């Protein structure tokens, strides 16, 4: 009895904030492990990890953008543009040129987003929605809407399909990027500025923080990261796809909010986003293995997004009225 009580009190003392999502993940994991054949196998784990690596990459940068009370809806089309440009370089036998073009394009998208958002009063939603369309249109125009196939063999494809030991290369790339972002946000002045700009832009300005430059920087980072995601996806699908990455903008926002970051800015944690990404990945993979259609999966993920945020809101005791 006393043991039970002490477990109970320990459970009560755990902060739902930090423990809720991991608990949900473990519960899902056990559920699928029992229900779905092959779910709890090493090969499947690396499969899940590979599937979510690019989402994780993009959601990481999206978290930082959202922490400044912004949003980047252009990441999906940036993936597509990066894919097309990478493939162009590959076709000419020069993968490094392709990568450079792709990353440069990502920076350019981020520069346009960041300059307008940082130095004018146009809201991030409008600016990046416009860029979503502009960038997507550019990718389609460059290829006349056709994918670029029949790329010559290259070391490049290892970026998408390779392994280091048991770990897929995309997972390693995402992990490295995540660690860099984590250090940037938690260990540098810039990270504090990001939270301050999102938490109270006026107070940040008054405190002498270069608000416009902070905003410009986060969109540059987001553009660059999205382009890197495009490069990796291109290596995985062995072609340049002008429609690659469609929907990643919303999926990344979903992962960020499932991870507990507030769309109003100033509140949230990068680690939460990892949980959000894993949750999306595990649900997808588990439902795949159970033979549930991708159409139904969309419904489940949408419900999970609303549910996760609803839990956060209810926990804080906040109701609209």
């Amino acid at each position, binding site marked *: 009895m006393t043991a039970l009580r002490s477990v109970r009190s320990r459970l009560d003392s755990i902060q739902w904030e930090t423990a809720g999502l991991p608990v949900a993940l473990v519960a899902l994991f056990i559920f699928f492990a029992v229900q779905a054949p092959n779910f709890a196998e090493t090969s499947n784990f690396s499969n899940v990890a590979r599937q979510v690596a690019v989402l994780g990459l993009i959601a990481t940068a999206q978290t930082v953008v959202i922490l400044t009370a912004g949003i980047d809806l252009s990441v999906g089309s940036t993936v597509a543009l990066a894919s097309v440009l990478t493939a162009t370089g590959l076709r000419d036998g020069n993968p490094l040129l392709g990568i450079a073009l792709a990353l440069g394009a990502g920076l350019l998208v981020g520069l346009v987003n960041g300059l307008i958002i940082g130095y004018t009063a146009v809201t991030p939603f409008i600016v990046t929605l416009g860029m979503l369309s502009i960038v997507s249109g550019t990718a389609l125009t460059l290829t006349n809407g056709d994918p670029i196939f029949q790329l010559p063999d290259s070391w490049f494809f290892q970026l998408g399909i390779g392994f280091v030991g048991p770990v897929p290369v995309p997972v390693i790339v995402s992990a490295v990027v995540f660690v860099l972002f984590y250090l940037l946000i938690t*260990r*540098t*002045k810039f*990270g*504090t*500025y990001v*939270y*301050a700009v999102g*938490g*109270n832009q*006026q*107070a*940040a*300005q*008054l*405190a*002498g*923080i*270069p608000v416009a430059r902070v905003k410009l920087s986060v969109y540059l980072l987001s553009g660059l990261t999205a382009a890197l995601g495009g490069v990796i996806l291109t290596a995985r699908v062995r072609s340049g796809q002008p429609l690659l990455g469609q929907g990643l903008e919303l999926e990344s926002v979903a992962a960020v909010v499932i991870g507990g970051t507030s769309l109003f800015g*100033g*509140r949230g944690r990068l680690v939460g986003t990892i949980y959000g990404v894993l949750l999306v990945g595990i649900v997808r993979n588990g439902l795949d293995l159970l033979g549930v259609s991708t159409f139904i999966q969309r419904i489940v993920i949408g419900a999970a997004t609303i549910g996760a945020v609803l839990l956060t809101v209810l926990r804080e005791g906040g109701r609209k009225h």
Partner: protein
Amino acid sequence: MTEPAAVRVSGVSKRYPGVQALDGVDVEVLPGEVHVLLGENGAGKSTLVKVLSGAVQPDAGTIRIAGETVVLPNPHAAQQAGISTVHQELSLVPDLTAAQNIFLGRELLRPGTPLLSRGEMEREARKLMASLKLNIDPSTPVRRLSLAVRQVVEIVGALAQNPRVLILDEPTSSLSEQETEELFDRIRQIRAEGVGVIYISHRLEEIERIADRVTVMRDGRVVEAGLPATTPLAALVRLMVGRDVSEEFPARDATIGEALLTVEGLTVPGVVDDVSFTLRSGEVIGIFGLVGAGRTELLRGLYGLDKADGRAQVNGRQIVPNGSPRRSLDAKLALVPEDRHAWGLVLPMSIRENICLSALNECTSHGALLPSRLEALAQRFMQAMRVKAPDTRVPVGNLSGGNQQKVVIARALAAGSDVILLDEPTRGVDIGAKIEIYQLIAQLAAEGKAVLVVSSDLPEVLGLSDRVLVMRQGRINGEFPKEDATPEALLRAALPVEGAVA
């Protein structure tokens, strides 16, 4: 029982995690009286207001209105029961007209249709406003009205519901002296109509001007209920604070030294016009004036938040023209803004992060933040400012108003400033914290720093300053050394020419 109380609160308690916000509170407000609720921040006044306005449910106790026990599960029920509240933060919708705001939630419709009857609402609004001697066009968007007029519009809206009890929470905190007097005239009128008015204010000197009775709260309890308004202020303060508060304004003996801030012809188009002055080491200058005289705009222009022309230098470094907050901070000039929630604090962040926000360069080594240095800096200024909190990691949003204000000042000091601009530093701050802020200002001057205080509070300006500048319509309309600064002289210089009544 010839005349039951307009509202009687009996044994009301409310507990929040870790705090007994209200502990068996008994208060009674009679019809036709202005009843002042007095207490420091955290004494329970706002919780009591929330209970009475239906925003918070008490754990125990009863509320009777005109003798009838009522339950107030939500704000609407409170209004139905006859309690109207005008909150400290104005709750008008800026883009709706005065009439629309007055009838918000109770819109008048054309009979038999779901369509709004604008004409009817505007006629009614005009009548209601006229009864409070407010002559504005009811179709004016609230955005275009001055703060003082907005306040009255809000009161008109509250009165439109024919309440038995009207709660006014710090209604004068953003009003000038003259506007306050006008508001008091209107409150007296409301009182004459038999409404019971609950009045909350931090300005003690308002008690003898407006109150009939005073109830003092401390630590969630009523210390003394229904004291006559003639009770000496010193006695009231002792009841509020629970100890003797000797000297409100600390003695000053700073030696005034060389010029730290020189301002020449500072102009912010449309609001500040050709302002020049010099602020010296060890000196405290007060800037007095009515709301709208351009005082806040002067500080913002000086600090680089708004574009300003003219010239200003700190320690010989130019900050105007082409100023920016960063540039001012680098020149060792800091601003503590008037509105600490909108401009002063990042509420989701901790005390530590807020204090260090302008001084992160000093806490960084090779690009990496050093938590130990952050902690040391935050500790130092948290202690210097006597911020009351268990540690530096507490979110600043959890602190009381006075402690939040101390954090904003701590941030300005942590930036290493020699010149501190304080805009209404004690607004909405309880008496204990207020005195601490006064002591701090004296101490800063004694350390050889220079302080500029903008305040609408006459005793504060008089008590703190070595010199007072009075602003009127964007210009400096008088400079008074301490010995010449009398309330009459300052008011005369501050009031518009045609209304020079003081």
